């Protein structure tokens, strides 16, 4: 659906990006200065790559060898910019319909439906300078959606917002990613947003794309430590809500035969959920421990051990066909005689899995 293989240069940064994705939400993840915005601007047509090819849904937007370079207005890419870029002299309503009356785009999407999806009803007659940051971003997303895009690019839509505003807008993004029905390229430097929203993860580091693939596989890779960030590193588990324990306020999630207990009861039985388990919240034991406060203990076996030069080691364990990542000290690896293939008990504190680590599963692309 989205095929990118380009080289380019902007300032002192050489860009060399190659990835493809089957649709759904593709996240472009990397630190500041990794070239994320440059890459998205090349896909959108605002910057011309030096060479290569860009195709969306089989439509070639750029092909250096064949001399194809569609102008921005013909690419049909809904671009949600980091700074929203609403037209200040027009009402929210006029902004939303801009693609229709100025761009001659016939939106297949219903105006009212988009207004509902993003909660814009009360904003329609207001002018952008009177909106809050979160409201501006929602309008920008709506405006892009109504331009009949074949791809939606969201360039760090939450970067300029404080945590409270982010929490306001994230549920809208969850819904959007579920209902949009078009591929989305989501740019972020926050592993939390990426783990929450994406199906495919593309890692961008120093202008290059060292790896891309399904998000759970990518987060379980320990060789990308620097690019994905160490402190926040963690693996994704997907499961279904199996039981609600109202007495103690716990939700039991079936992750393939094993049950993970997490706080919070705002779920319905049977709904799929995605959990991001930070590696630093996971402990390992060689014998099943007793008398612990930790409620989640699973039998697992070690898939790989990556020792770094510092005090830490990254251990990947398999539990019911899914991967859990643990970050422990090298000293513990040595003392416990941990080795690949060895059975261990994985321990996860329920308390460590807060609301932000728990999200609906993004839909599998058709």
């Amino acid at each position, binding site marked *: 659906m989205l095929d990118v293989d380009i080289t380019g240069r902007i300032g002192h940064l050489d860009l060399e990006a190659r990835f493809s994705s089957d649709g759904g939400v593709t996240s472009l993840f990397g630190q500041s200065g990794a070239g994320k915005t440059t890459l998205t601007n090349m896909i*959108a047509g605002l910057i011309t790559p030096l060479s290569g090819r860009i195709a969306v849904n089989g439509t070639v937007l750029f092909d250096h060898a064949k001399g194809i370079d569609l102008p921005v207005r013909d690419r049909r890419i809904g671009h949600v910019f980091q700074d929203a*870029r609403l037209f200040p002299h027009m009402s929210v309503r006029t902004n939303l319909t*801009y693609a229709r009356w*100025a761009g001659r785009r016939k939106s297949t999407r219903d105006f009212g439906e988009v207004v509902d999806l993003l909660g814009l009803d009360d904003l329609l007659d207001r002018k952008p*300078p009177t909106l809050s940051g979160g409201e501006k971003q929602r309008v920008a997303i709506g405006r892009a959606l109504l331009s009949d895009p074949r791809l939606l690019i969201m360039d760090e839509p939450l970067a300029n917002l404080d945590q409270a505003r982010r929490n306001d807008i994230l549920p809208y993004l969850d819904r959007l990613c579920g209902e949009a029905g078009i591929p989305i390229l989501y740019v972020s430097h926050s592993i939390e947003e990426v783990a929450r929203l994406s199906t495919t993860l593309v890692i961008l580091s120093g202008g290059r794309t060292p790896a891309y693939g399904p998000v759970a596989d990518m987060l379980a890779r320990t060789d990308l430590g620097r690019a994905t960030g160490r402190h926040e590193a963690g693996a994704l588990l997907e499961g279904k809500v199996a039981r609600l324990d109202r007495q103690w306020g716990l939700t039991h999630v079936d992750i393939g035969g094993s049950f993970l207990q997490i706080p919070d009861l705002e779920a319905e039985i049977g709904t799929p959920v995605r959990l991001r388990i930070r590696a630093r919240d996971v402990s390992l034991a060689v014998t099943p421990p007793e008398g612990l406060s930790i409620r989640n203990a699973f039998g697992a076996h070690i898939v790989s051990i990556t020792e770094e030069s510092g005090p830490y080691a990254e251990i990947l364990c398999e539990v019911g066909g899914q991967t859990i990542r643990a970050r422990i000290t090298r000293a513990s690896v040595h003392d416990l005689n941990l080795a690949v293939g060895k059975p261990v008990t994985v321990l996860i504190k329920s308390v460590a899995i807060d609301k932000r680590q728990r999200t609906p599963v993004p839909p599998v692309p058709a």
Partner: protein
Amino acid sequence: MDLLSLQPAEMQALLLTLKVAGAALLVALPLAVLVAYGLARYRFPGHGLVNALVHMPLVLPPVVTGYVLLVAFGRKGPIGSFLESTLGLSFAFNWTGAALAAGVMSFPLIVRPVRLSFEAVDTKLEDAANSLGAHRLVSFVTITLPLALPGILGGAILGFAKAMGEFGATITFVSNIPGETRTLALALYTATQTPSGDIAAFRLTLIAVFVAFAALIASEVLARRLRRRLGGDHA
């Protein structure tokens, strides 16, 4: 002599001045907007030369500009004779010549604020408009032009004021012909050159002050309405 009603000669000078300045603005403003946009948004070979050419009338003595116009657009001038033989348009010693002189003299004064206001409009907004399918021309008309409107209005007022008061280039180019090229400024000059013309000069001065004052108030009202329409913080 009635103090409050205008005498025929005064009325004639006033109407002629408005006609000359209006025509000058009508032609100079769209041209100035185009030139200002080109200077603000594009870097091309000869950018500096165009910029210098536009600003030339501002730094040259007006008499020089008037003389250049006379040489180029006069009946025997290369451009003047060409226009007269093809379009039947003559600038020599009639009011269109006065309008041409006023337009040329006010051109740099219009270009300057318009260019500044174009430069203040974020090109990123135009990118956003293009990404929504708008052609460059459409994004210019719907985004850039409205956001630059306060600056364009400012340029228009400045240009109109300059055109109304133009003296040196006009008298050099098209002389001082009553009913044809004698604008308020030229009439006032004539009055000061006439023995016992003090009262006439005084009355013309009052008329000029009144017109200028009315124009300023009108522009202020317009600017305020514009600011409100552009959404408060985008003045």
